[in-house]
């Protein structure tokens, strides 16, 4: 009979109920993370998510690579914060972006091989949506044609883009490159042989040029 139950029993039941509902089996966080990861892969595969991204270990830190249905749309070098990178994609492309490493297996594999010195060329489709138009785009198209190990000066790449005197504008275009490494803006150096600026930091530019065995006249 309920009459012989004390209110303490009921209180214990009540807190058990609350605990049960709050924990919902105890491994809620783990199960929710796994369900979210399954969701992200599916959303990317079905095209409901516009952008899929993945993290990637490199000898210089963790990079990020992002793709649309058309191809690789952006690479975040290790010196960029993930939040900043995602915020830019969110505003520039679509906030419908998810972490779906399965969609980027091939890109990650090729990038890892490159960073380990086992790959010279990439066979990945690129999405140029984030690349500005006009002269800037012509500069980056010309840059994309520079082979592994080669370099060109800012003036040379400006000339190949159709305006030999626009070396400063060429520098601006390279600074806006959304797909570094795959569009190898690190191969554009100053005329004296000094590597010059780089979105990933000057040290990274030197590191990449050394990896490719490029000839630098500057001894620094």
């Amino acid at each position, binding site marked *: 009979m*309920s009459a012989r139950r004390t209110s303490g029993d*009921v209180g214990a039941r009540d807190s*058990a109920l609350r605990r049960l509902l709050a924990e919902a*089996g105890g491994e809620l966080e783990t199960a929710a993370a796994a369900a979210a990861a399954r969701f*992200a892969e599916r959303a990317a595969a079905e095209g*409901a*998510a516009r952008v899929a991204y993945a993290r990637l270990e490199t000898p210089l830190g963790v990079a990020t690579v992002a793709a649309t249905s058309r191809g690789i749309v952006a690479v975040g070098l290790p010196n960029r914060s993930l939040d900043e990178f995602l915020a830019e*994609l969110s505003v520039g492309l679509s906030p419908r972006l998810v972490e779906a490493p399965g969609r980027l297996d091939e890109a990650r594999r090729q990038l890892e091989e490159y960073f380990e010195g086992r790959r010279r060329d990439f066979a990945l489709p690129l999405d140029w949506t984030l690349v500005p138009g006009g002269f800037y785009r012509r500069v980056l198209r010309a840059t994309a044609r520079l082979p592994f190990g080669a370099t060109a000066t800012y003036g040379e790449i400006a000339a190949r883009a159709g305006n030999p005197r626009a070396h400063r504008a060429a520098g601006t275009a390279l600074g806006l490159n959304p797909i570094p490494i795959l569009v190898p803006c690190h191969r554009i150096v100053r005329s004296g042989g000094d590597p010059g600026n780089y979105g990933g930091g000057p040290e990274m530019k030197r590191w990449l040029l050394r990896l490719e065995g490029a000839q630098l006249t500057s001894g620094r």
Partner: protein
Amino acid sequence: MAATVPFQRFLEQHSAAVLAFLRATVGPQEAEDCFQETFMAALRNYERLDGANPRAWILTIARRKAIDHHRARARRPLPRGDLPEPAAPAPAEPDGELWAAVAALPPKQRAAVALRYACELPYREVAQAMGTSEEAARRNVHEGLRKLRRALEEVAR
């Protein structure tokens, strides 16, 4: 201004609350399917989120998916009454009787109790997610809890 928080962040922030809510309303077995449907609907309508309370918004979608789920089950030609089929209690779960008692609640009370205790929402947000007044949300939670206590006392007897 449409939502510009990357969907991945939104997903990470709300996945535990959504799963907790769905486990309590449709049961642990079916929660995963409803979870997938809930976030897919949210993703397809993400641009509409627009300044609303994101947690209340996603839980509103989850609640609708749970209702759809119960209706789909009720339509199946099973020999039972018009009550939605109670969610199966988690097997090998010492709190199985609690699950069974939660599953036996009327849908509105079950949803309200789940939002209040599984997702730990304040009553204002329970009301937003339920599409009711705050007063009605309180009533649903209290009535649900009263029934749960009674059911559990009977089990213990």
